[in-house]
Every structure is written in structure tokens, then in C-alpha cells.
């Protein structure tokens, strides 16, 4: 019982990342009809926004501590962040401690800008090109982006911890009357799930209740007709691309305390997020979110010892197996529309 509860939580948490990435991918796909292999790179750039903010907050001046030596035997240079110097260790330290949540504020404009730049500078010219060309050019872009990040930040993972207040774990089992230690779950992962739910909700509300969203939804359904109404759908689609980039970026920012970010984390998620999108049904936003959570949960359950002892290695292939089964039984994924991406 507690094991099932735990794995459900894990599934929801994994699913959150899948769902957020797939959501952005589907937005781009549904509105622009572009297969964006660089979407994983956007996730990665978001994560490195957090790294950068944390580095900036940690900018330090050096003082020499003659009592200690460094690895060469020279007097040790001790670094003190400017922030702590300016605001005192109390408040300055708190700012540094909260660098990941603070990074959200910086990441949104940066990601929107990156999205605009990508769409206007590159993707725009590929609307009418075959999907294969789109794949090639965005894949090339993804490689370039990750190599640039690697050049500046190295290939090693960079630890980017959560604020102290949100570290550690919460005993959820006690809350529902189970034994202590039965259902222990990391606080930050709960935050991540809540954050993902918030973002998903916000995107849906935005599309559902604003005029802008209405036009975009109409455009997703039938681009030409909306264009005929004299609405500048292209401009709106550019904005959608910015939003999709921001969603991927925020998913990345918040992911950094869960796993130390590295330059290839985008590629790690890319294949999986495509599987998620396709299982959900190309062009269907609810489908992407649903499939994200579904696959996250299935993956978590597949890694339980009880399951693995019956089917060794099942956790290695579960996602792909489920994808195959769903695609064979439901031709267009869980919630896909007819005629999208079947040519």
C-alpha cells in the first residue's frame, strides 16, 4: 500500500517533467506544425539559467587566509560572495540559498526571448519544408546549443541545490495515518509537482479564457481559415513559440535541484518527450499532459522490485512497450486528432 502510494508520487513527479516538456512540444507542433528537436535544448537552457543565476549570486571576492593552504601549498584564498559582503551573511546568504526560485524570474524573459529568436530567426523559414528538413535543422540547432553550453559550463553536472527550507523530505504517511517513515517524500519534488500543475493549469486557462488563446486554438484547428479572417496568426504563433520555450525553460529551472544539470540533459529527455507527445496524440495538449503522467507512473511502477522480479528488465523498456501498444490500439494516440502528421 505505502509502496504503491510512493510509486504513484514518483510517477506524478516524473510525469510532471515529461508533461511540461511535452506540453511545450505540442504547443509548437499544434500551432506551427514544426517538429522541434531542439525542444530538449530549451529545457536544458532553462536549467542553465538557474545555474547562471546561482553563479551570479555567488560572485565572490577573495581574501587570503594565511592559516590554511591550497593544493599547491600556497596560502588559501577564501571566497566570500559579494552579496554576503553587501547585505550581511544573513540576508545575502538567504538570497543565494533561494537562487533556484529566484531564477524563475530571470528565466521567463530569457526563455521567451530565446523562443522568439528561434522562431523568427530559423523555424519561420521551415514551415513549408518537409518534416525531415525540420528535424535535421532543429537537431543541428540542438547540438549547437548544447555544445555552446558545454563550452562555457563544462560537461560535468553542476550541483544546484534547493533552498534549505525546501530540502529534505516530508513524512506524508503520518498525515494519512500510516506508520512514520512509511511514505517519505522529498519536499522539493512535491514543490515540482505543484509547480507543474500550476503551469499546466495556467497554459490551459490562457488558451481557454483569453481572446488570444481562442484565436490560437482556432488556428491549431484550421490555420487557413483563421488567416482569412484577417487575423495575423503568424505573430500570435511567434508568441506561442515564446510561451512554449518558457514552459520548457521553467521546467528546466525547477528541475535543477532534483538532478544536477549537465549539458546533455536535453537530449536525455528528447526521445522520451517525443514518445510522450505521440502517445498523447500529436497536437493534443490534454493528450500530452495525460500521456506524460501516465508514462511517468507506469515507469515508476515498472521499477518496483516486485514487478522486476517477474519481468527482469521491464523498467528498461516499459515506456516503449506502452507506446507500441497504445499506438497499435489507438491509431492516433490517446487523444490525437485525425490528419495531424500522418503525411
Amino acid at each position, binding site marked *: 500500500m505505502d509502496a504503491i502510494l510512493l510509486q504513484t508520487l514518483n510517477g506524478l513527479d516524473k510525469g510532471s517533467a515529461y508533461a511540461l516538456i511535452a506540453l511545450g512540444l505540442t504547443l509548437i507542433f499544434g500551432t506551427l506544425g514544426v517538429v522541434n528537436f531542439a525542444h530538449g535544448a530549451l529545457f536544458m537552457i532553462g536549467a542553465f539559467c538557474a545555474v547562471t543565476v546561482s553563479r551570479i549570486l555567488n560572485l565572490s571576492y577573495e581574501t587570503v587566509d594565511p592559516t590554511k593552504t591550497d593544493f599547491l601549498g600556497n596560502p588559501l584564498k577564501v571566497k566570500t560572495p559579494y552579496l554576503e559582503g553587501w547585505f550581511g551573511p544573513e540576508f545575502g546568504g538567504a538570497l543565494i540559498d533561494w537562487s533556484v526560485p529566484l531564477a524563475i524570474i530571470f528565466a521567463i524573459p530569457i526563455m521567451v526571448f530565446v523562443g522568439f529568436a528561434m522562431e523568427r530567426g530559423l523555424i519561420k523559414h521551415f514551415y513549408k519544408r518537409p518534416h525531415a528538413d525540420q528535424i535535421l535543422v532543429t537537431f543541428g540547432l540542438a547540438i549547437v546549443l548544447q555544445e555552446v553550453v558545454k563550452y562555457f559550463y563544462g560537461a560535468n553536472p553542476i550541483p544546484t541545490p534547493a533552498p534549505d527550507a525546501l530540502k529534505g523530505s516530508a513524512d506524508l504517511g503520518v498525515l494519512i495515518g500510516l506508520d512514520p517513515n512509511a511514505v517519505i517524500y522529498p519536499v522539493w519534488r512535491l514543490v515540482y509537482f505543484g509547480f507543474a500543475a500550476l503551469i499546466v493549469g495556467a497554459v490551459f486557462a490562457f488558451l481557454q479564457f483569453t481572446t488570444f488563446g481562442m484565436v490560437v486554438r482556432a488556428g491549431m484547428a484550421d490555420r487557413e481559415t483563421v488567416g482569412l479572417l484577417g487575423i495575423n496568426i503568424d505573430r500570435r504563433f511567434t508568441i506561442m513559440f515564446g510561451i512554449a520555450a518558457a514552459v520548457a525553460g521553467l521546467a528546466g529551472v525547477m528541475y535543477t535541484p532534483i538532478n*544536477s544539470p549537465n549539458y546533455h540533459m536535453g537530449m536525455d529527455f528528447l526521445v522520451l518527450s517525443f514518445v510522450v507527445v505521440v502517445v498523447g496524440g500529436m497536437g493534443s495538449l490534454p493528450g500530452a499532459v495525460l500521456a506524460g503522467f501516465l508514462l511517468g507512473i507506469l515507469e515508476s511502477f515498472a521499477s518496483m522490485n516486485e514487478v522486476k522480479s517477474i519481468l527482469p528488465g521491464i523498467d528498461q523498456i516499459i515506456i516503449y512497450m506502452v507506446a507500441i501498444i497504445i499506438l497499435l490500439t489507438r491509431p492516433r494516440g490517446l487523444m490525437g486528432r485525425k490528419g495531424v502528421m500522418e503525411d
Partner: protein
Amino acid sequence: MSKSTLTRRGVLKTGAVAGATLATPTIFTAGSAAAYTNEPTGSTVKFGFNVPQTGPYAEEGLDELRAQELAIEHINGMGDGGALNTFTSKALGGDGVLGKKVEFVTGDTQTKSDAARASAKSMIEKDGVVMINGGSSSGVAIAVQGLCQEAGIIFMAGLTHSNDTTGKDRKANGFRHFFNAYMSAAALAPVLNKEYGSDRRAYHLTADYTWGWSQQESIAAATEAMGWQTVNNVLTPLAATDFSSYIAPVLNSGADVLVLNHYGGNMVNSLTNAIQFGLRDKQVNGKNFEIVVPLYSELMAAGAGENIKGVYGSMNWNWQLTDEGTKAFVQSFGQKYGRPPSNSAQTCYAQTILYADAAARAGSFNPCAIAEALEGFEFDGLGNGPTLYRADDHQCFKDVLVMKGRDNPTSQYDTLELVEKTPVAQVTYDANHAMFGGDAATLGTCNAGA
């Protein structure tokens, strides 16, 4: 630096020579004209450094490359000579090897057996290297070692920790300076016993490929021998990035120690996730819950950040050692690159020096002569204290370090503290040990190619 052939005058000269020789009659030379593969004929000899330069281990590879370049400098008599000054063998005189200046070429293994073999082949076939050194995974090491055996050159392994490299996959042309999973286990077990007691229940998470199994088998055997129980061993996919679903059940399994048989990105993530779940803050069976990471590396420790505080693991070598060889190497490396070397860098440095020294002692670059010179070679002064290159399996035997994540690091490089230097006798095993392929494992015969 290494290849200064394209000077302006050089270009003109080669151009002229080219024009002249086009008319000369063609000569067919079968590869067998030489006594052995890539016998150096000119005034230089080429080493091949095959390290991961792209992919997750790129940083590890970069550090290996730094150390290899430094070793070449020292062999060629540039810089401060580093550990050559402390090395017990004095065959190298700082004027290259056997009167030849040492050059090097580099390749990218991408941490894939296929790509590693491709770049190794390119170095052998195109650049004519006499040895290959480097790498940061056992799969790659075994694949390239096999290739070098076939091609008839020497392979000086870099970071490879699987028992198989000098176990069932050992090769006459391959040599390993790095320690292995068995040694890790042998060194760690007594320390764990001392720190955590003999009544512990261990839960293993193991990367689902040969190295992971090899390490898990070794650790389980060593810890069980001192009274621990192995509650469970769960295999995790190599591609896994989020280990939450493997870690969540640990707390309720009755285990009070978690052993993470992971390396690289896997280790960084699984350890980070384990700390997130607050495992080390818990009490199980009336004891503090503990985590062990049997194989540490500086770079991965840096990647895991503060999560490694207080976590035990083992290493081949660390820059904090105080022997003369280590000090000389760290000083030299630190002056040049502004950072302390990692243990994989030290292995590659030592391997390059050892190869050059063996060639100098053997008086030839013939791989069989070099193999003979390395087999049973005892030396000191390269770090780790007295070391033996065992003839039976081409494995180095030396002290193994038990490390612990430092609680209060003073700098970004000061992530681990040295707990114990396990003496070599304690980590020595028989060459036909069951974990190393038993009696069936043989080196085969040395292949000089050609």
C-alpha cells in the same frame, strides 16, 4: 608543441619534395617489412591518447588529456620533470625515449566501444602510434584492449574499474594501473565494519551493465564476509536519470545501508536523489541510515555537491596524498593547469610514464619487449607508494584509498577527505580468483603485429 611540421619553410620544402618524388618509381611495401606494428623509424615516436571528449565523461577525458600532455612534456625534458624526479626507475633521461622525441595524437572515444575502437584504429593505422592510453569506462577499455591485442600494440588502460579488464578479458598487450572493483571492496569493507559495525543490512542499487554487476558482486562478497546482509540488489537502467522510483522503496525494505554501484552521471543523480529522500537523516533498525558509493571520482564528487558529505567510497589515488611522487605530480600539474589532478588523470600520467620507462629499459618499442619489461616491474615514486605490475594478469597492485565526503570543504577541489590508506597486501588477490575469470582467464600471447 607536439607536431611542428608545418612551418612556412616546411610547406615549401614538402612541396618541392613532392614534385620531385612523383616521378620516382613506385615501391610496394607490405606491412611486414617492420619488425612490429608501427615501428618508429624517424626521430620521433607517437603515443595515442584515446579519451572521451564528447558525451557525459568529457570532463574526465579532458583531465586525462591534461595529464598525458604533462607526461609527454616531462618525458621530453620540458617543464619541471614532475614525478620523473621521484620515480624509482631512472631509465628516462628527459630526452624522449630511446633518443626519440615523443609526440602524441588524440582521439575521442565518446564513451562508446565502437567509436573508441574507430578512433584507436585511426591512431594505429593513420598516425602510426605505438601505444594507446586513456579512457574512462570499462566497456571502452576492454574493447580497445582487444583491438590493441589484435593490432599488436600496447594498451595502457586509463580509468577502468571492472574486474573483467584484467580478469576474464585480460590481454597480453593490455596493462591496467587503475584499481578494480575487488580492490575497492577489499579496502572499503574493513572501514565500513569499523564505522558502521558488522550488523548491517545493505541494499544495493546497481547500474545494469557489466561494470555495475562486477562491483556489486565484489562489494556484496566483501561486506557479507564481515557479517553484513545483502537485503536486495536492484538493477537500474544505464539511461536512467531520475532514480526516485528505485530509492523510494529503500527505507521500508529493512535495510540500513544503501550501496550505490553507480558511476558518473548515474552516481551523481542516484546520490542526489537518495539525499533528497532524506535517507541519511533517518534511523532504521536503531541505527543511522548510511550511504556508500564504492567508486569515487573527484569530478563526480563535484557534480554531487554537498550531497556527498560523510559518504564513504574508494579511490585509486588522490591529490591529498603526501608521498613525494604525488607531491611532485600535483605541483607540476597544478602549476600548469591551476587545479589539482583527478585520479583518472594520475592514472593516465603514470601509465604514460610507465610505458616510456619500460621502452627505455627494454631498449625497444616492440610491444613484446615492453610487456616483458612491465611484467613483474616494481616501482615507487609515482604516487600510491610501492607498486607492482603483476605479470600474471597485468594488474597494478598498490595501496587503495578509502575516502569520505568532506563536511566543510575549504575550496571547490576540496570535496573528499582521506580516511585510510589500505595497504596493498589487504587488496591483493590470486590471479585466478573466481571473480577474475578463474583458471580459464589467460593473457594469451603477446602480439607484436606485422
